[in-house]
């Protein structure tokens, strides 16, 4: 269920761009994020809302400002579940091929 939200949130180029902006500079306000996005404040707010629901960003109030921080923890979970597993398979396969070739060489 959490994975679905993460994949859905990542399926939009504007939301990926917002994550890139926060990766470049963490802890930005809505106003700062709007400056670098070619879209209305309202749309940016909606995209940020979806990213927050997917737990890809978190927000903190500092005085009158609300700061947005990228939260890569769910990305790492997706990596561990959906990427690393297959990489390990491929490394295992290489290992098997090497063993097989070396055995035949003798």
């Amino acid at each position, binding site marked *: 269920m959490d994975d679905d939200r993460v994949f859905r949130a990542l399926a939009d180029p504007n939301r990926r761009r917002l994550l890139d902006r926060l990766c470049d500079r963490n*802890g930005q306000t809505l106003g700062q994020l709007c400056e670098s996005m070619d879209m209305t404040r309202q749309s940016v707010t909606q995209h940020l809302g979806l990213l927050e629901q997917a737990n890809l960003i*978190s927000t903190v109030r500092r005085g009158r400002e609300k700061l947005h921080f990228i939260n890569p*923890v769910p*990305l790492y*979970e997706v990596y561990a579940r959906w990427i690393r597993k297959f990489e390990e398979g491929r490394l295992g396969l290489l290992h098997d091929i090497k063993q097989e070739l070396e055995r035949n060489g003798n």
Partner: protein
Amino acid sequence: MTDKSASFIYVTFIRTTPEKVFDAITRPEVSRRYWDHENVSDDWRPGSDWQHIKVKEARTVELVGKVIESDPPRRLVISWANESQKDDPDQYSRVTYDIEPKGDMVKLTVSHEELQPGSGMLKGISEGWPIVLSSMKSFLETGQGLNI
């Protein structure tokens, strides 16, 4: 003045209790099972020292600091520096663990603040926290940490 303006905030939702999350952070026999490190302090009370000790490699002390605030099982604030830089106050950053129940889950927020932009510590923690928190979640929910 040293620029210590960089900060990160990490959030994970874990299906467990606040007590178990607090234990996972502060009890060495638990943290070693998902972190490969033990977090060790005599009592985790404000003013006490804490150390982050690698379980393998002859138990090297990698990080040191002091407990700044402690309110088990909801909140823990500690200072944090490389053991090799422990004599330089500018090298200390601050880590806050906030633990809030949310329905049948616990929301764990780790705020790592007062980091120097471009520092090795910043690079290290920004790679490390997502792995450690994913592993903690996996350990508390399934009994098995990730291979980190």
